[in-house]
């Protein structure tokens, strides 16, 4: 196959606010041969994010946070979603640092070990975001309550749920957030391996 090449011919801002969107004029080499026409793409930039699913290897419980998500209003039965812990990455931050900070802010949890699951692109047709997904062992007995930064208007309720129930909620559509679905399915496939690695029992 020929070498793949692309070119961003022009960039024009569409709006700049908390997030930003641009129109890019791009062309690229094609599988059929030669170059594509120059075509417009609307690109939404909200930065990158990190997510972590805390899991207790001894009680087989998962820690999730419930929060209001305005972007879920058009499609979800209720815009309060149950999700893994997650947060936006500031420039220069490492995903592991964001996972630790958000676990403390959103659930009062101190994380030690982190296992990287995958890094996925939530909406690659139009959004530049890359989302790093981790699973972390915790003592779920230390989790609970209402958390979140008041000055960021975060209002989060911590739920500690049996893994089997969380998996059932993914499969019947009560859990819909992509970061959470990915981490739960991954853990369903790797639970025994992770338990052997992380159990606190002698």
């Amino acid at each position, binding site marked *: 196959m020929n070498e793949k090449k692309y070119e961003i011919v022009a960039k024009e801002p569409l*709006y700049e606010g908390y997030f930003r969107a641009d129109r890019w004029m791009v062309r690229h080499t094609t599988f059929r041969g030669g170059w594509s026409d120059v075509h417009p793409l609307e690109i939404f930039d909200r930065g990158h994010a990190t997510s972590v699913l805390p899991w207790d290897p001894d009680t087989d419980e998962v820690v999730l946070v419930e929060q209001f998500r305005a*972007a879920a209003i058009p499609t979800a039965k209720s815009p309060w979603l149950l999700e893994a812990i997650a947060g936006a990455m500031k420039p220069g931050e490492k995903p592991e640092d964001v996972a630790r900070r958000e676990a403390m802010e959103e659930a009062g949890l101190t994380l030690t070990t982190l296992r990287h699951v995958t890094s996925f692109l*939530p909406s690659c047709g*139009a959004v530049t975001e890359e989302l790093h997904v981790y699973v972390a062992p915790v003592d779920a007995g230390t989790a609970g309550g209402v958390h979140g930064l008041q000055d960021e208007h975060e209002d989060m309720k911590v739920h500690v749920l049996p893994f089997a129930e969380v998996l059932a909620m993914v499969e019947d559509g009560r859990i819909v957030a992509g970061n959470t679905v990915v981490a739960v399915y991954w853990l*369903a496939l790797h639970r025994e391996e992770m338990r052997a690695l992380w159990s606190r029992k002698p």
Partner: protein
Amino acid sequence: MKPRRFRIEAREAIWRGHFRADRITIRHETFTGGESAPLVLEVFDLGEAACVLPWDPASDRVVLVEQFRGAVAAFSETPWLLETIADDLGPGETPEAVARREAMEEAGLTLDALIPAGRILPCPGAVATRVHAFVAPCNLADAGGVHGLAEEGEDILVRVLDLDEALAMVDDGRIQASHATIPLLWLARHRNGVVSGSV
């Protein structure tokens, strides 16, 4: 008590094009009681989409499509992604109809059964979009080639991969699109059930 109520106090259109973006001012009930302060949020609306992962139970192979994705050029040297067959839902279209149409357009495949593999909000922090995922058992013996509507600028390479290879590619980052990652993980969990008819 579980909070249930919210009200949108203001909505301002900040972009109307192929996609749309709004700045909304919203209040909601809180877990600690009472109502939140007004939140000003930017919500980007891509509408709804459907995706389908064709899977051959006899060979345990799947079809993914490779195409150029400009949004990824922001941080990737090679913005060609491996994804499931997918498209936006047009007005009045069902997810099943879109899955079937795109399987023909993007891979030349005629699908039989469509097994629901999740309805996902890939990015609920800021993007109002939902993706309806399906797995479609089918015969992939003849799958391959370059597809897509040339007049729409589509340039799509069909890739037929062992499911285990595709799962390894999710693990090591060669597959990153959420609408590929999620149906692949779903199928890893359910492939035996699909064969036995329990899913």
